[in-house]
């Protein structure tokens, strides 16, 4: 660990670029940046720098490159995987001051934004054009477009509209050595390797987006939201499978179990969910108004056939907003249950939902932890959340054990250890369970293309040892092109 004193000279240099207010070095000020919503990891950065323009951002990265210093880019710090935390010897680059919407092209449905623009603010800005930005993470009132791009963020409405990757047309990247490069195009598909596709979801390891051109989506003519409540979790899960199989693509299809329902209803976000239900399904269909009523009827009928006690269709926008409030604020509501909350993220094939929910309940029972499930059921993206008291080390240990078993069960079912939160530091240990050494090494090689010196968000996403193995691989030594690591 490097003593904070060694950062004083660097801080001075950075102050000449971003001004005195753009650099934080006081431990108390830096505490804000020590977490990203996941209570299991806290790391206070030694220094945080906040460029306010693209030119400043480039100069900051160039300065860090010249000093041989690693850095961690950070948006709003809502990533939930520990990805935005800086180790004691790396600098945190906060992108919140780069928050301008640079251009809106309503005709071609594109917006050019700086990385610090808050997700919901973009949607609000394009509302007058009858447009919105489709990816809608639960944190959308706080999280930034740059962070969304880094994490390839999802959200409830990604079931129909796709994840961040499907909504990014182009980006200007500051590479870890300070060079600028434009990837992607607003002029249609490119014929080269999909470097933009590789960049999206690279968790800050490939550089920093200085600007992003996102696609906007036409607002639906009509929206209908339904709430179905079930006396058995399994019934709700089977209803999800049936709805998907019917061919209807709901805009969103969310599930909450009893633990979540109770937490929500006890909080200021109470949405009127029946507290005795084992699970509720929140389904939304949207689009052109013609034909939408049929979809509502079909979904209602499926839920009823699967044993739903009641299916409620929201009568107006206010009623819809209330139903959604409970879902979007469920994580906040769980704050009432215990001091700490692990919001987890994993994926299973949709037909495996009933099995996996049974497994999760069994694992929770065995480790004596409470799991509240609130998740994107329509695409099999689970969020098993554990509220717990972090002061009790015995409890913390059990939480970790339960989480690991849940991840293993999801992989066993043919799923993935993350659907939208990323690997960060939290899931590094699971990567070797999900991918072979060769596959991990191939990922390291891609990192090496963008960041040969591994200065951008070092030691995240892929375990460092995998990269060492790849470096030593015979194929790398033989490389006549000098390899990808210069």
């Amino acid at each position, binding site marked *: 660990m490097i003593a904070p004193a060694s950062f004083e000279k660097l801080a001075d240099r950075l102050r000449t670029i971003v001004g005195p207010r753009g650099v934080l070095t006081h431990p108390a000020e830096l505490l804000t940046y020590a977490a990203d919503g996941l209570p299991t990891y806290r790391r206070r950065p030694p220094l945080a720098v906040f460029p306010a323009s693209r030119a400043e951002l480039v100069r900051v990265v160039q300065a860090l490159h010249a000093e041989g210093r690693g850095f961690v880019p950070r948006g709003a710090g809502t990533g939930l995987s520990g990805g935005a935390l800086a180790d004691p010897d790396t600098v945190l680059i906060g992108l919140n001051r780069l928050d301008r919407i640079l251009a809106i092209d309503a005709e071609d449905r594109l917006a050019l934004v700086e990385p610090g623009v808050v997700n919901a603010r973009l949607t609000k800005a394009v509302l007058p054009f009858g447009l919105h930005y489709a990816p809608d993470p639960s944190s959308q009132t706080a999280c930034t477009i740059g962070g969304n791009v880094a994490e390839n963020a999802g959200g409830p409405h990604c079931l129909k509209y796709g994840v961040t990757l499907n909504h990014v047309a182009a980006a200007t990247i500051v590479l870890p050595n300070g060079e600028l490069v434009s990837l992607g195009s607003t002029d249609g598909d490119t014929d080269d390797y999909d*470097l933009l596709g590789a960049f999206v979801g690279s968790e800050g390891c490939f550089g920093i987006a200085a600007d992003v051109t996102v696609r906007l989506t036409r607002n639906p003519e009509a929206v209908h939201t339904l709430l179905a409540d079930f006396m058995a979790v399994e019934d709700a899960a089977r209803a999800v499978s049936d709805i998907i199989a019917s*061919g209807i693509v709901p805009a969103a299809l969310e599930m909450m179990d009893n633990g979540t329902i109770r937490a929500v209803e006890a909080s200021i976000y109470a949405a009127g969910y029946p507290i005795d239900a084992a699970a509720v399904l929140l389904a939304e269909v949207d689009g052109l108004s013609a034909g939408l009523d*049929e979809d509502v009827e079909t979904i209602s009928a499926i839920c009823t056939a699967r044993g739903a006690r009641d299916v409620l269709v929201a009568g107006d926008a206010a009623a819809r907003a209330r139903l959604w409030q409970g879902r979007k604020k469920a994580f906040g509501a769980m704050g009432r249950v215990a001091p700490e909350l692990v919001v987890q993220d994993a994926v299973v094939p949709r037909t495996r939902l009933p099995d996996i929910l049974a497994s999760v309940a069994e694992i929770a029972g065995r480790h004596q932890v409470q799991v509240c499930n609130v998740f994107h059921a329509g695409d099999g993206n689970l969020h098993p959340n554990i509220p717990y008291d972090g002061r009790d080390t015995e409890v913390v240990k059990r939480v970790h054990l339960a989480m690991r078993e849940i991840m293993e069960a999801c992989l066993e079912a043919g799923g993935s250890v993350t659907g939208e939160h990323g690997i960060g530091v939290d899931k590094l240990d699971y990567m070797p369970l999900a991918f072979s050494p060769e596959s991990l090494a191939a*990922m390291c*090689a891609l990192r090496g293309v963008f960041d040969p010196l591994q200065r951008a968000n070092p030691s995240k996403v892929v375990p460092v040892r995998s990269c060492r193995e790849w470096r030593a691989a015979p194929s790398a030594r033989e490389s006549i092109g000098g390899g*990808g690591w210069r």
Partner: protein
Amino acid sequence: MAVAAVATQATAVRDQIAEARGRGETVRLAGRREWLDAGHPVSAARTIDLSGHTGIVEYVPGDFTLTARAGTPLGEIARATAAENQWLALDPFGSDRGSLGATVATASAGPLAHAFGTPRDQVLGIEVVTGTGDVIRAGGRVVKNVAGFDLTRLFTGSWGTLGAITEISVRLRARPAADAHLAVALPDERPAAIAMLCREAAIMRADPYALELVDARFAVRLGLPAATTLLVRLGGNATAVAAQRAAVASLGRLTELPEGVWDVMRTAEPPGSSVVRITSRPSALPSQWTAMVDAMAALPDVLVHGSVGRGTVRAIVPDAPPAALAGAVQRLARHARGFSAERLPPLVWAIADATWAERPMSGEKADSVRVRNELLRRVKDAYDPLHLLNPGIMGEAIA
């Protein structure tokens, strides 16, 4: 082509690549050869034939995902999924005889890309034998997944220059309960009329699966009157399709078409033809369209079509004197926005490339292009360090 062994397992492909590496021999990766050498000739010491590497490995209809070996023909996937009232919403030009692997390796898509995107949006995971001889897996079989760096996106559309894709998982969709296939003929050919139609189509109360403009010659090929025509594909429940049909009718006089019209359209592109593509923002499509039609006017049998929502205009040139083709392509490369010589004879390609390169560029843009080319080169070096796979297929930058 000294050796053309049929590979049926990833390990067999790995062994063949290892052997080629040992001898320093270049390798041509071949699927079902439906599109092989279509303007992208590759001369290599040996060919690895993936056409025997067929079959659906896993298909769980309830998951709406399917995993198949790379050599599996698109037609086989279409038949298997149709039995479950599902489909892989990819309709690349050519035919259903082509393989899933080639479609993914070339990121080829057709009119359905309007609603469903390209292979880059539909591939969930892949197994690849890289040029380093490693068998790797990227992505997975679930519809949402952000575990690790996205090698799936990188390898999709890499034209076999980084590795041989041996297995692919894709996302499927439910077949719509109802559909409609419509043609709207343009009253006249003036650019203003085309611009007006495109604008109205973009804002009409419909969410089409496909929105494709065809020129008069293409319309005749599809059995329609000789006029620039907008083809519209609709899908959904019966009420939704009926309402959208009414919206399309506001654009002009409708002609009902059979569903098969899309297959006729795809197969109108003969395997050996040259293809020129220009791309732009959708709002610039009308002027791009006019530029393409004008540039191609003198060539025989050219078919022009454009994806209204994606800003793409393609000209299919089955057979043209190279000098005339070069002239047309040069004009386009000089004036069109995005330009791509999708499939061209090498000489014509070189002329187009040189013309494109002559276009003025700001210093900042030139720097960016230099850095980007360096990244592309490093990608190649990382996965095929000996530069053995499909040499030259992606042009000079990635030799």
